[in-house]
């Protein structure tokens, strides 16, 4: 037996009684009781929970373990709590967390109190051969606070298996039950009313194929509005860049839904909100651009020859200043009357009962028909545009195709619950690959332009700045070479996307069977 076992004591069976009974047979040494707070951390969108990981701090140490397992994967000592991944000291913990939490900030989910007593079972040499830890989790330090949980841990010591095996057997015979899987994590989060995994920016919309199209569209739009509301509150706190990002994606999807799910609402309403959300989106364009460049700081530096790496710093300094002004503008926008009214009217529209007097053409249509029709049409548009590019690759056309693909992707995601999950996911994955290529190409074009234009804005005052300009030039060169590589890869990526297998699957899912 190598793993720790967690037992529940039978009702009314006290820990002291257990120790008294064990003392007849074993030499036991009691360690000083430990009483400390521990706090659990995760990102706003539960990235660690989604990977079944629990990150918690106790005293000056930070621990990572698997959910439902007690073994610690990594421990580090900390002087102050890391907020972003780049605050972590280099090491295994950082390496494991980096691809998971990326640019998101760690938030404290809950802090609870733990009182534990360790009893060491000794052999005749006075050597510890197994440990018993009685642990009580309390919502606060208060002495009489009711415990959330109390367990007895049996922790074997490597090389002395017999002792722990005997004890485990004895406990089970006495009526102790092994408590499996129920991780204290859930109980503790429940105290503060937090539901693990409750927020995700991914679309998770359940629709019924027979639903009226206008009702189904409202369900989709309602979901997106919620995402906007949830994130909007945190943009002001400026904890990380992703609150704004999720907020903006929800806006973009809303606009796309209004444009692509055609003729479900009265034209006047649709046109008004299309314009309104274009305005809402524009409010934060500049801020998001700056976020993207600042997040790329390390990547950009790595693209530069070592001699130039420091010279680019003034650019990022300038962008940081610009960003703080941009943030102020966004916050002003979000507090403006106009924004308030748009969101208020939008919410009212989504909540109002449908009026059958002024129905639009597709309003009553069962949503499955509309979904199939719209997706298939969009798909055909993508295929046609792509084939034209293969013959004659123009940058502008790649840009148009990128937008088309995005619209198709959103449609497929809005309606994914109406189709066989596995099959539609295969197609979404295929589309993602094509989008990846087009997205990279677009990003590189935009970045080159942006960097080129920013050189005009930089206050040309001193010698240092000339070096910065050289560094920017070098960066543009590297980006340009990369852009050509990406462009060359388009033909192959697109041919893969329109493979006969994919075409068949698109036809199968989205065309009306005779």
């Amino acid at each position, binding site marked *: 037996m190598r793993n720790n076992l967690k037992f529940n004591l039978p009702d009314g069976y006290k820990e002291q009684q257990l120790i008294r009974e064990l003392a007849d047979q074993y030499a036991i040494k009691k360690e000083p009781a430990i009483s400390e707070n521990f706090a659990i951390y995760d990102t706003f969108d539960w990235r660690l929970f989604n990977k079944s990981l629990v990150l918690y701090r106790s005293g000056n140490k930070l621990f990572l373990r698997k959910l439902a397992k007690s073994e610690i994967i990594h421990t580090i*000592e900390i002087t102050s709590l890391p907020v972003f991944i780049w605050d972590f000291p280099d090491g295994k913990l950082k390496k494991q967390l980096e691809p998971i939490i990326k640019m998101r900030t760690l938030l404290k989910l809950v802090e609870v109190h733990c009182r534990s007593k360790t009893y060491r079972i000794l052999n005749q040499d006075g050597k510890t051969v197994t440990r018993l830890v009685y642990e009580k989790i309390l919502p606060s330090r208060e002495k009489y606070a009711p415990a959330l949980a109390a367990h007895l841990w049996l922790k074997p010591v490597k*090389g*002395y298996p017999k002792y722990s095996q005997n004890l485990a057997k004895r406990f089970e015979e006495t009526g102790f039950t092994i408590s499996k899987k129920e991780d204290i994590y859930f109980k503790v989060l429940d105290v503060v009313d937090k539901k693990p995994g409750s927020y995700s920016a991914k679309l998770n919309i359940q629709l019924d194929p027979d639903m009226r199209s206008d009702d189904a569209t409202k369900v989709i739009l309602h979901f997106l509005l919620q995402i906007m509301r949830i994130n909007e509150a945190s943009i002001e706190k400026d904890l990380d860049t992703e609150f704004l990002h999720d907020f903006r994606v929800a806006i973009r999807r809303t606009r796309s839904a209004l444009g692509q799910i055609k003729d479900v609402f009265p034209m006047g309403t649709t046109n008004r909100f299309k314009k309104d959300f274009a305005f809402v989106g524009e409010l934060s364009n500049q801020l998001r651009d700056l976020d993207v460049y600042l997040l790329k700081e390390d990547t950009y530096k790595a693209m530069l020859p070592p001699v130039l790496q420091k010279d680019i710093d003034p650019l990022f300094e300038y962008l940081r200043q610009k960003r703080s002004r941009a943030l102020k503008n966004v916050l002003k926008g979000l507090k403006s009357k106009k924004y308030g009214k748009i969101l208020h009217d939008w919410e009212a529209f989504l909540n109002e009962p449908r009026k059958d007097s002024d129905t639009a053409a597709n309003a009553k249509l069962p949503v499955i028909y509309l979904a199939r029709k719209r997706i298939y049409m969009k798909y055909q548009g993508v295929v046609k545009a792509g084939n034209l590019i293969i013959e004659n690759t123009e940058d502008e056309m790649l840009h148009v195709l990128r937008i088309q693909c995005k619209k198709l992707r959103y449609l497929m995601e809005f309606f994914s619950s109406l189709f066989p999950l596995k099959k539609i996911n295969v197609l979404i994955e295929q589309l993602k690959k094509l989008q990846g290529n087009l997205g990279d190409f677009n990003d590189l074009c935009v970045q080159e332009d942006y960097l080129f234009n920013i050189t005009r804005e930089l206050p040309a005052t001193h010698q240092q700045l000339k070096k910065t300009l050289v560094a920017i030039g070098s960066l543009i060169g590297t980006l340009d070479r990369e852009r050509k590589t990406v462009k060359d890869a388009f033909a192959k990526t697109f041919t893969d996307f329109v493979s006969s297998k994919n075409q068949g699957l698109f036809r199968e899912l989205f065309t009306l069977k005779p």
Partner: protein
Amino acid sequence: MATLALYSNKGGVGKTAAAVNLSYLAAQAGAKTLICDLDPQSSTTYYFRVKHRLKSQAKGFIKGRKHLYKSIKGTDYENLDLLPADFSLRNLDATFAKLRRSKQQLRKILKPFKNQYDLIILDCPVTISILAENILNAVDYTLVPLIPTTLSVRTHRQLLSFCKKNNYKTGKIYTFFSMVDRHKKMHHDLIRSVSKEFDGVLQSYIPYLAQIERMGIYREPVVAFAPTSAASKSYQNLWDKVQKTILSPEKRK
């Protein structure tokens, strides 16, 4: 992952006490640590209250892997495991000598453990024979306790010239002062001159203290049974220096 040998070609310099306390401090700091007692006298094993016995003795040691893994014992402290010594290890030198690639044997034996532990500390017997070469080949760094006396310093010079002659990197050998008597002027003088003469001298002193000798009575690291004592503070200071100077990630690149 790092491997560190507490080694000296002179006896009674405080290798074992340093190995025991450093491994304890490393484990307390969260590093999964293995301390290997290579000394047939088995003092480290004794300090941790473990029986000095390897399953299938030195034979098992040389076969390594699961034969050796089975012998590892958890200590009284979380994160700290011990590979106990065995009296049969006294012939390790002769056994290694008979094998092919006789100087790489220990390295081969320790290799499978490198993934399982963050830090492996070797407590080595006094040797400058083939076993010493095995140690130098097996570890990333060597830490030599140095008593500030003429003989001790002379032995250290011998070690360095041995390494140079046999192409072992002296840059990976670090020293610290051990059993320092603050009342002796000679200790002060030697500390000063030695720090100039050798590279890799950690500015850390373990004083000559009765408290350290009491480890034999308590059978625990001094840092565990008297955490606020002067002895503990000196080991804590040594551990800080080892971390910063030897084990820090920038250093290890």
